[in-house]
């Protein structure tokens, strides 16, 4: 079994009309045994920026702590919040620092930039950024998620419709994946 499938995870982010939604499952497992059903995978960096981390749970928590630290220092020094694109570059740089002993995480970033233009992106565990205009997925259920999002997604959805769409996409995909599930967390901004 791959190290990325040790704990199980499912993450998806979608772009709507001047809004974004990011959703994750809630299962924390140790291979086939479920040990928690309330595991937090999506974290708030600031009011308009959320990061979801899939993969090995310990790396999820450590990486989030490092990123929160860097962002808080940035806020104190520069007296402003980080733009999503800037934060994406920071995450990418941090992941690449560990090129030969990486964090086993695939982040999904979602944020609102200047003028509330939504921004989403995902990365592999070494920091290769993938920007998208519609949706990004990550985790053990990613293949099902790709299929579900591709069929359910429409551009320029309002927040309520976006919430429905992302929830349906997440729930139907995790149903087909034994390593993720047990409900979901959805954030719509």
């Amino acid at each position, binding site marked *: 079994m791959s190290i990325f499938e040790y704990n199980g995870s499912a993450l998806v982010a979608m772009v709507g009309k001047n809004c974004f939604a990011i959703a994750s499952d809630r299962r924390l497992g140790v291979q086939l045994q479920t040990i928690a059903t309330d595991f937090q995978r999506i974290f708030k960096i600031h009011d308009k920026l959320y990061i979801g981390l899939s993969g090995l749970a310990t790396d999820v928590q450590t990486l989030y702590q490092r990123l929160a630290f860097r962002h808080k220092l940035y806020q104190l020094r*520069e007296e402003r919040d980080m*733009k999503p694109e*800037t934060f994406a*570059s920071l995450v990418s740089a941090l992941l690449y620092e560990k090129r030969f002993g990486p964090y086993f995480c695939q982040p999904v970033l979602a944020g609102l930039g200047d003028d509330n233009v939504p921004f989403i992106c995902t990365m592999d565990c070494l920091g290769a950024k993938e920007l998208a205009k519609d949706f990004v997925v990550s985790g053990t259920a990613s293949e099902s998620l790709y299929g579900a999002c591709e069929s359910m997604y429409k551009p320029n959805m309002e927040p309520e419709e976006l919430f429905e769409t992302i929830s349906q996409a997440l729930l139907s995909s995790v149903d087909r994946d034994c390593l993720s599930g047990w409900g979901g967390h959805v954030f719509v901004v």
Partner: protein
Amino acid sequence: MGDSQYSFSLTTFSPTGKLVQIEHALMAVGSGQTSLGIKAANGVVIATEKKLPSILVDETSVQKIQLMTTNIGVVYSGMGSDSRVLVRKSKKQAQQYYRLYKEQIPVAQLVRETAAVMQEFTQSGGVRPFGVSLLVAGYDDNGPQLYQVDPSGSYFSWKASAMGKNVSNAKTFLEKRYTDDMELDDAVHTAILTLKEGFEGQISGKNIEIGIIGADRKFRILPPTEIDDYLAEVE
């Protein structure tokens, strides 16, 4: 001075609470060639005298105003070699910031880091403070900005400032002439007039240097021909 016992050890405070070496560094700045900066509503201008030690020096090879990034420029008063070291370090820091965040470094951050370098050299063993004060001019998301950094490592944001030999006259002149809604062109004229005040000899495009940055966020050092045009307008 009664502080003479403490005046050559950098890292020892004198009983009056001063670090005398820094005071001496400020003297070095005060005997350097005059330089000044003015922040306009839509840009910043920095200027300096370029008095060369002899007419045989090729003035095109001397450049006192330098770029730290494409949108931040700097001029100094004091020891030119010290300023080159600082500018080199700052250029590197600016690029490191870009490499991490893929975003141009804000002017205030670069000034902070440059000032931190200067402060390091007032609290380490075996080094001396930098004998320069820098005027940093830049344009970023917070608009046009002008900062002065001293050998002690302290920095201030200014609307208009001068340093070097003629500092008190220049500052008085600037105080009288400065208005908050000045345009960049007016600021250049004011800068030239201020330099002219204390200038010994005939001012021309070859013995002053001017750098400007406007809303296009590209710092530009004016060629001597353009300076001569401005000089003609001022006459």
